[in-house]
């Protein structure tokens, strides 16, 4: 008998606190698997943000620091600048990164801090019960856009990866998703590349993951994945926005 697939030791034994079918769980697994496969679990420091993934410090089997809401990239800077040979990553949702923490994130990228940002975009504030996020889609009903998001009132969905692709210091930037097995495999590849670039000291790397929120979207977990594919990807196209590794070879 040969093990084809089993839970990675990059995750602790603590059961995940996420709602049934929430793809936070899948992304946690991918990050943990990548760190285990790269053999750096013992050299990694995770920076947990505030949102549904506020407990991520309980789930990643690495040293971890809990950051204030929006400040993960600043905390990561403080850690990485003093431990340049360790692996440092932040795990942030769209409220944490694209709203309150956008300045810290942009400037960490602009300073090309040699960290990896895992950015979970699920178009909503999950932990606090379904409020509108900067990435909520036009027309999307949330508890703070109850008749649907309107551009003239609430502004348009913010395009983080597009914005960050303009920042010189960004070494690798890809937007991926996990709405089906093929996307999950591609997401893992992207996450691995980001951490590899960090290990090669190439600078700031970020992976934006289009992710689901079944409970606050009011859908079954399976329908939520369809919603990502059908509704989110047209607004947030999946692609590689920046790859300093490739540019160097070209």
């Amino acid at each position, binding site marked *: 008998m040969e093990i084809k697939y089993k839970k*990675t030791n990059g995750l602790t034994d603590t059961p995940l606190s996420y709602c*049934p*079918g929430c793809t936070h*769980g*899948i992304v946690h697994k991918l990050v943990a698997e990548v760190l285990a496969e790269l053999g750096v679990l013992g050299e990694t420091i995770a920076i947990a943000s505030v949102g549904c993934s506020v407990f991520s410090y309980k789930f990643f089997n690495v040293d971890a620091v809990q950051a204030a809401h929006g400040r993960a990239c600043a905390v990561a800077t403080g850690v990485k600048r003093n431990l340049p040979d360790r692996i440092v990553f932040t795990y942030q949702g769209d409220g944490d990164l694209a709203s309150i923490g956008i300045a810290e994130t942009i400037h960490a990228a602009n300073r090309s801090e040699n960290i990896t940002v895992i950015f979970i975009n699920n178009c909503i504030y999950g932990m606090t019960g379904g409020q509108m996020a900067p990435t909520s889609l036009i027309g999307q009903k949330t508890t703070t856009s109850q008749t649907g998001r309107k551009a003239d009132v609430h502004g348009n969905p913010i395009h983080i990866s597009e914005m960050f692709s303009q920042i010189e210091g960004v070494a690798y930037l890809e937007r991926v998703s996990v709405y089906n*097995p093929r996307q999950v495999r591609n997401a893992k590849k992207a996450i691995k590349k980001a951490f590899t670039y960090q290990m090669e000291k190439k600078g700031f790397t970020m992976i934006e993951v289009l992710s689901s929120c079944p409970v606050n979207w009011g859908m079954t*977990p*399976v329908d939520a994945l369809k919603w990502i594919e059908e509704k989110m990807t047209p607004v947030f196209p999946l692609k590689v926005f920046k790859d300093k590794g490739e540019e160097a070879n070209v």
Partner: protein
Amino acid sequence: MPKGILTFETEKCKGCGLCVAFCPVKILYLDKSSMNQSGYNIVKITDPDKCIACATCALMCPDSIITVEVNN
């Protein structure tokens, strides 16, 4: 065809159904008649012999409760 053996940590299953939806040979289902400690209907197999050990179920499981073994 290699034959897969699935084991589930049913106490940690949240009955989300992603494995059921993406199993290419459609042998998984949520047993409406049984619940774990947390009150979730847990995943079960209809026909273990049909499992092709592709591990898609395990890949999609957000809570990493599925282990896939294969004897080829």
